[in-house]
């Protein structure tokens, strides 16, 4: 019994050196999403802690102090990460995730507009370069013919 108490007392300072990151994983209506993998990765040591969200979507992770990237795995859509979360001893940082399908569609659409616009600008420039080159070649051929006919 004395040994157990001693062990408990020795473990206390270690426990006090941890920080807590908690929050909730929700859909766009605010309802909790259960069984979603949530991880906290220390940005300097790369040590990762992970947990699955509770039936109400909430999660709690105990981590060492430091800067963390907190991420959730969204089924079928990859990992969402929030970086630069500073975990401080004895304090709790709350990071909520809203996995909204409605915003995603608009976001995706604009992403493709961006890609399309970039390619469009480049393609238009290349077409203008090629047509200019053709015009210059035609001009040169005309001049060459003119010089030859004048010489004859």
């Amino acid at each position, binding site marked *: 019994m004395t040994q157990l108490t001693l062990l408990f007392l020795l473990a206390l300072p270690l426990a006090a050196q941890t920080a807590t990151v908690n929050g909730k994983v929700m859909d766009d209506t605010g309802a909790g999403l259960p069984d979603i993998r949530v991880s906290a990765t220390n940005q300097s040591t790369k040590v990762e802690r992970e947990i699955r969200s509770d039936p109400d979507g909430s999660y709690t992770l105990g981590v060492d102090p430091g800067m963390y990237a907190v991420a959730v795995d969204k089924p079928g859509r990859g990992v969402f*990460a929030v970086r630069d979360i500073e975990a401080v001893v004895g304090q709790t940082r709350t990071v909520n995730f809203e996995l909204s399908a409605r915003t995603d569609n608009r976001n*995706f659409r604009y992403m493709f507009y*961006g890609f399309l616009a970039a390619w469009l*600008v480049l393609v238009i420039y290349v077409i203008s370069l090629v047509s*200019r*080159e053709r015009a*210059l070649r035609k001009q040169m051929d005309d001049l060459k013919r003119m010089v030859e006919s004048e010489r004859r």
Partner: protein
Amino acid sequence: MREKLLYAVALIAGILLARNLYVILLKLPDEARQDAIWRIFTFHLPAAIASGSGFFLALVFSGAYLAWRNLKWDALAASITEVSFALAIVTLVTGSIWARIIWGVWWAWDPRLTSYFICLLIYAGYLMLRRVIDEPTTRARLSAVLSIFGFVDLIVVWKSIEWWKTLHPGPVLSIRTGGGRIDPNMESAAWWNVLAFVMLAILLVAMRMRQEETRREIDALRRVVHTV
């Protein structure tokens, strides 16, 4: 030989772009705060770096023209400026589409965007100036001076996110911040695309330079026609 080299550059650029699109669209996850739209960064930043580097090279060749008065340097500066201008348009358009989602507006008059817009106006003026002046040495001299002006503004663009509090995000690349501001996989994807854009820019500059050579041949032929 030169043609073969150009085809090789085109092939490498094509392979790199295809590989990068695969990684960006299918391998990398969405970002927490920005969702899928962050991927525009992998085109916006490479276009900005390639065009900025191009404008710097144009400044160097413009300086070379002013020092040695060789029209070859002027042709090179003009070719690079034109390609860089096209890439700067890509930067502006992709940035605007990203801003529509993240800021809720297509455009904001913040220091980074405003100085970049002025920069584009200066280089647009450079390209227009070259069309209206026929005399090659006057055209080269004035273009070189304008290139210097344009690059001074480009320095303001580059430092604006450090000098002023801007709506535009601050520096994120590890070479400027020492790391920790962006996910390493996302940064790596952007750098791979920088390589692809630089290859593409080299290809376009080579195409544009060939036109300058053709134009010189045309001028020579015109002189022959006049003599004859």
